């Protein structure tokens, strides 16, 4: 599976591997201590930079427009 940023590919792969193992072997058995946190922080930083570089404004995009007064209507 690819990352949104090519430079984050390897970080993503390592984090996903750590997470999948921890999730099945520890989290589901009641252990919430997450050893993948350090890996995640590095990967997360890379992804957020890649998103910025691609001009994807996540916050703006998450704003609800339809069904609100901001919704545009066809000219009558």
């Amino acid at each position, binding site marked *: *599976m*690819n*990352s*949104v940023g090519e430079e*984050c590919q390897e970080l*993503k792969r390592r*984090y996903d591997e750590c*997470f*999948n193992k921890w*999730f*099945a072997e520890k*989290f*589901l058995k*009641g252990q*919430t201590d*997450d050893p993948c946190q350090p890996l*995640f922080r590095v*990967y*997360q930083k890379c*992804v*957020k930079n890649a*998103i910025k570089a691609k001009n*994807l404004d*996540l916050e703006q*995009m*998450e*704003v*609800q*427009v*339809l*069904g609100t007064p901001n*919704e*545009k*209507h*066809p000219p009558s």
Partner: protein
Amino acid sequence: MRIWTSEHTFDHSWETVVTAAWRKYPNPLNPSVVGLDVIDRSIDAEGKLNSHRLMSTSWGMPGWVAKLIGMQESVFASEHSVVDPKKKVFTLNSRNLTLSNVLTVNEQLVYSQHPTDPNKTLLKQEATVTVSGLPLCSRLEKMMTDAMNNNANKGRQAMEFVIDKVKKEARELSTEAHKCMDNVLPKPSSL
């Protein structure tokens, strides 16, 4: 707005299904999912795992629709999910980010342990489509819900595919472990 709902039972435990769900992509049945990243993840005070993921797809719309609404190559979607390991419920909510000023597709999936059989998992899916500002509103909505039905079937097949893969890996690991032990332990005749 059109609402589409669907229910399905997996013949596997909730733990198996949820573990597989995280490994759902890539799979041969959903080739249009091209990218997936975890934006945020944390465990809250109640021990639930909260995740926020960004998904990019190149899901195909007919060419004329793409031209009409000036669609980009990659469609981005945002997914928020919560895993409650005590109640055995995994809830996912996803919404498109691209074109959200034109149409919004909201999808919710809830994987829960089957109420009467702990070796089975129930999946309830629901989607709403909101379209506005286009002259072909209801036709576009119908196309969406038809595509969703199609994809839901593929999604379920994809889950079975991944569950199978995860179980096979576990069996192979077990076989290797046995082989290793057989080589290490002295055979009864040599004692």
